[in-house]
């Protein structure tokens, strides 16, 4: 059991800046994120896209913004728990017991939900029949590539994951690559390589096709694909891999007894607390009259939520507002003279 002042759910820009504000006012926090890297939507959806509306930063990419936030947070040495998701929240006396999918447990008076539009999960095949093979022969990520040796593998998608795995697995498996259109969004060099492998009949390339059905008795045996004109083809396959990018799902957050408005959590704008004492929501996931889904709004919300957390983390102390330019206590916390 890890004891801390605050658990932050979500390591996007809003969660990161809230952590910084907690550090400034002398609180400790632990940050949990479902992705394998820090940065949230900025790093997963648009690392290379320029952002033009961060105050005093005329232009920066999602990746640059993330790196700067990490740098700003460095003096506090907070722990990140990546590749993990908060599953359960339970009240025990004055504290929240927070449990993650990987079995970590935290005890804390404050939880800050900075979860964006939810956690990122792979988009799955639309066909119902694929569900019963999910995790065994229908896969959306690869942990151990040796299982595909000398097997027939049907790969769906047109991005880098699909292309890279098609190229890699074609060395030791019979690969079919299926994509809904003629163009690929993967790197030009990979597209060239795929076309070359297709010409040499090392991989079977099916463009303008999508999945229709998966068949098999216990294990996957074949998949059926269809063109938009309605023509079907059957391909032998021991494995089907889908690389259709990530979607955002609210997931377990919906089960914690919080008031919800569509996919967002109503908060008061004084400290961004939800209907549950000690649970705060900031960034894209919170809603209130006039809410703007801007990164800068998330920063403001995080700063106020941090002060809200102080009240429960230090019930016997009075919070004193201080400027970073003037306060020696804050300079000590930042490690600057």
């Amino acid at each position, binding site marked *: 059991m890890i004891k801390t002042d605050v658990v932050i759910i979500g390591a996007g820009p809003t969660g990161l800046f809230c952590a910084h504000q907690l550090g400034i006012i002398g609180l400790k926090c632990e940050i949990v994120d479902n992705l394998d890297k820090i940065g949230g939507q900025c790093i997963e959806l648009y690392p290379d896209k320029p952002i033009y509306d961060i105050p005093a930063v005329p232009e920066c990419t999602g990746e640059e913004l993330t790196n700067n936030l990490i740098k700003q947070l460095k003096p506090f040495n907070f722990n990140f728990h990546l590749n993990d998701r908060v599953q359960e929240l339970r009240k025990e006396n004055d504290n929240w017991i927070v449990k993650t999918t990987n079995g970590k447990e935290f005890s804390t008076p404050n939880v800050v939900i900075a979860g964006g*539009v939810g956690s990122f999960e792979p988009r799955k095949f639309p066909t119902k029949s694929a569900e019963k093979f999910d995790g065994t022969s229908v896969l959306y990520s690869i942990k151990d590539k040796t299982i595909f040796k000398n097997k027939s593998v049907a790969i769906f998608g047109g991005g880098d994951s699909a292309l890279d795995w098609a190229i890699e697995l074609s060395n030791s498996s019979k690969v079919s690559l299926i994509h809904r*259109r003629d*163009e690929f*969004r993967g790197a030009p060099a990979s597209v060239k390589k795929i076309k070359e492998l297709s010409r040499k009949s090392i991989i079977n390339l099916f463009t303008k096709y*999508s999945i229709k059905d998966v068949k098999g008795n216990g294990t996957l045996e074949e998949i059926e694909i269809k063109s*938009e004109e309605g023509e079907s083809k059957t391909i032998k396959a021991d494995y089907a891999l889908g690389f259709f990018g990530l*979607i955002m*799902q609210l997931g377990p957050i919906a089960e914690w007894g919080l008031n919800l408005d569509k*996919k967002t959590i109503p908060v008061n704008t004084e400290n961004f607390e939800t209907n549950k004492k000690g649970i705060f929501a900031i960034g894209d996931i919170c809603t209130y009259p006039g809410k703007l889904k801007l990164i800068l709004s998330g920063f403001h919300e995080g700063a106020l939520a941090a002060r809200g957390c102080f009240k429960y983390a230090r019930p016997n102390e009075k919070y004193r507002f201080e400027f970073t330019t003037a306060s020696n206590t804050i300079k000590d916390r930042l490690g600057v003279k």
Partner: protein
Amino acid sequence: MAKIKYIEHNGKEHIVEVQNGLTVMEGAVQNDIPGIDADCGGSMSCATCHVYVKEDWYDKLSKKEMGEDDMLDQAYEPNSKSRLSCQIMVSDDLDGLCVYMPEKQV
């Protein structure tokens, strides 16, 4: 101003007037029409405002910009009439436009 018809997957029709300069996505969200999620808010970073454009309208729309098809690869059951509704800008020329919503967005 254009009258736009949004048809849910279950066949339910919604006809609303949408101001010029808004997107077809915004027309749906502002009028509480179900079936368009628009998780990313219109920055072409997700694929949850996916619609199928009625056959005779598809070619009348301005062409897809770079990146839209890449996002559509990640949509639910895209086809050759698929568009991201956040990338269709409303103008008088779009009066009568008809779009179908997919079975689901995520």
